[in-house]
């Protein structure tokens, strides 16, 4: 049947049915298009996506205890977590620590890892490591270890070691969300005085919301002005929007540091104008952070609104006016609703980008204005706690990707434009 219908169709010069020939050509064209995109796709996957995958993996994978205390890990795997572990576990700890001394792997590394879970345990572990070297014979070691430090007689210590000896751990991710395991191995919310990350996430969202609102409030009127002015004037004024956009982020941040200093230009001007009697602190606090971030993000909010406004026919408002609407009514009921897609695009973009700010708050903010990115950097470089850095990064990445998905559905990446 199929061949019969095809046979009736038109054929090309070499006798192949046209339909098949066309399909082949289409397929070849599609493959060619894919071949053109493939190099960049692979490049992005290897240089960008894989590194991020490595980071995400670091958030759940930490083999340090399993590697540093192999015997203890093996014994504790059998232990049910009730009461104290058997004598074998105590002997394993002694053996692992002696082995660590021989191989010159620092016992401090064990202490550091366990310290993430029980603050203050690090010095006790190091002390134990030193004392264990003096222990002779084949045991039993239970009494000896508890004598060295009473923490070895506590069930929680052993539970923590058992939990951390698993290479795949949810500890860092739980910690990033301010959750932890209690002594009974149940997940619970951290007490308020230990719940540090929640505050940082809330602060990050707070700053981002404020910056987004500020850019909308400042950007909307200017976008409207630029969209309604004759092209010659608006092109000229557009330079004032685009020049900051093209200027190095560090230059703009430097400028704000210079301007907002207590002895700086803004303070001088405000005093000269008589608005202030005394110099006020404008930098290294929330004011400085919001001002500088708003300045940097303003074009990102303004430009999408502007390009949507450009497409709104001026006749709409004129029609509304001639039908008797007042100036504000016509604007609010006829013009404004048509700008909503632009507002959504601009604000969403600014909000997404604000969530990840690092450099600007680090330079013009105070300790209480540092956003989540700052702590990712801090845990990577200064604390060298990569698990924690990765877990915080994972939470930030998840939030960003969800918003990016919404942006894609709402605006579409194709519509992203510059200038």
């Amino acid at each position, binding site marked *: 049947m199929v061949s019969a219908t095809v046979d009736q169709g038109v054929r090309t010069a070499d006798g192949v049915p046209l339909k098949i020939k066309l399909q082949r050509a*289409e397929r070849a064209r599609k493959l060619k298009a894919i071949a053109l995109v493939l190099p960049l796709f692979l490049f992005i996957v290897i240089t960008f996506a894989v590194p991020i995958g490595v980071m995400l993996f670091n958030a759940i994978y930490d083999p340090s205890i399993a590697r540093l205390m192999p015997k203890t890990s093996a014994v504790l795997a059998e232990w049910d977590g009730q009461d104290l572990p058997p004598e074998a576990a105590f002997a394993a700890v002694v053996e692992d620590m002696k082995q660590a001394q021989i191989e010159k792997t620092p016992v401090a590394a064990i202490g550091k890892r366990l310290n993430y879970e029980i603050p203050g345990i690090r010095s006790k572990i190091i002390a134990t490591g030193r004392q264990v070297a003096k222990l002779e014979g084949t045991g039993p070691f239970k009494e000896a270890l508890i004598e060295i430090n009473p923490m070895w007689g506590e069930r929680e210590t052993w539970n923590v070691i058992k939990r951390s000896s698993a290479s795949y751990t949810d500890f860092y991710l739980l910690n990033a969300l301010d959750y932890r395991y209690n002594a009974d191995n149940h997940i619970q919310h951290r007490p308020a005085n230990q719940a540090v990350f929640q505050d940082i996430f809330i602060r990050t969202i707070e700053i981002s919301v404020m910056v987004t609102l500020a850019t909308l409030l400042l950007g909307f009127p200017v976008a409207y002005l630029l969209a309604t002015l004759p092209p010659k004037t608006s092109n000229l004024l557009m330079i004032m929007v685009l020049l900051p956009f093209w200027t190095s982020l560090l230059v703009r941040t430097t400028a704000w540091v210079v301007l907002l200093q207590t002895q700086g230009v803004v303070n001088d001007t405000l005093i000269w104008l008589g608005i202030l009697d005394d110099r006020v602190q404008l930098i290294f606090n929330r004011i400085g952070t919001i001002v500088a971030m708003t300045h940097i993000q303003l074009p990102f909010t303004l430009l999408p609104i502007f390009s949507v406004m450009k497409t709104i026919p001026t006749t709409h408002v004129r029609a509304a006016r001639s039908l008797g609407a007042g100036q504000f009514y016509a604007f609010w009921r006829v013009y404004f609703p048509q700008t909503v897609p632009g507002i959504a695009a601009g604000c969403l973009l600014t909000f997404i980008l604000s969530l990840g700010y690092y450099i600007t708050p680090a330079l013009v903010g105070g300790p209480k204005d540092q956003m989540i990115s700052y702590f990712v950097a801090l845990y990577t470089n200064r604390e060298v706690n990569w698990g924690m*850095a990765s877990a915080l*990064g994972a939470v930030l990445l998840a939030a960003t990707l969800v918003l990016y998905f919404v942006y894609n559905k709402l605006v579409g990446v194709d519509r992203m434009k510059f200038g």
Partner: protein
Amino acid sequence: MAVPAYATPIERAWYYIFRAICAAVLVFLIAPILVIMPLSFNPEPYFTYPLPGFSLRWYEDFFGSARWLDALKSSVIVAVCTTILATTLGTTAALGLSRANFPARSVVMSILISPMIVPVVITAVGMYFFYADVGLINSYPGLVLAHTALATPFVVIVVTATLMGFDHSLSRAAQGLGAKPMTVFFKVIMPLILPGLISGALFAFVTSFDEVVVVLFIASPEQRTLPKQMFSGIREQISPTITAAATLLILFATIMLTTVELLRRRSERLRGIRN
């Protein structure tokens, strides 16, 4: 948009208030840039007006210091390599993406654009872990690869936008007349999309030239770039030399902006889009 003759006094007042608000916002946008430039000519190491005189000492400082010049050199090397790599990869991909019925176009596009959206710190930390494993850390190639990943989204967006208005029958005509794919690209497509291509390249250059977070994570002191030098400068004690560097960078941004604007107009003319 002048005040119409029939405007009520309130509308008239609002018109001027509105203009004043806009003027204030535009001043807010441009003021930091305008204020910092004169300060770089201040003979005294202060950041206050009025200036007691005029001097080029901070520029002499900038051009006389090996630290700043090395930083400038590193920045230019990395940015030029990044531009070449990013423009090539980005343009090729944009050509593929702009073909009709590209499969799963929006998904592929959003993956290619994602380096622009993902917070730079996350990118930097991931690269720090991964590039250390494969031996790319503290090296120029590593930095160039990292910057290229960050810069290609701009090239893809700008070139794809340019290709939107491109008349594909032109390349089909060239093909029909017997031109090889390479010839079609270099003789027909490229001259027409050249303004967009250059704009994309400039975006890539600026992205790399400005980037500081990834540099802080994966570069050694040997690859100290201009932004890194400025960053540590602001962190410690702002020396007025930074204002000289900033002024030079503003000048650079102005040239970039002008070029891109001129190219955009030319591109619109070439593609027959009239305002």
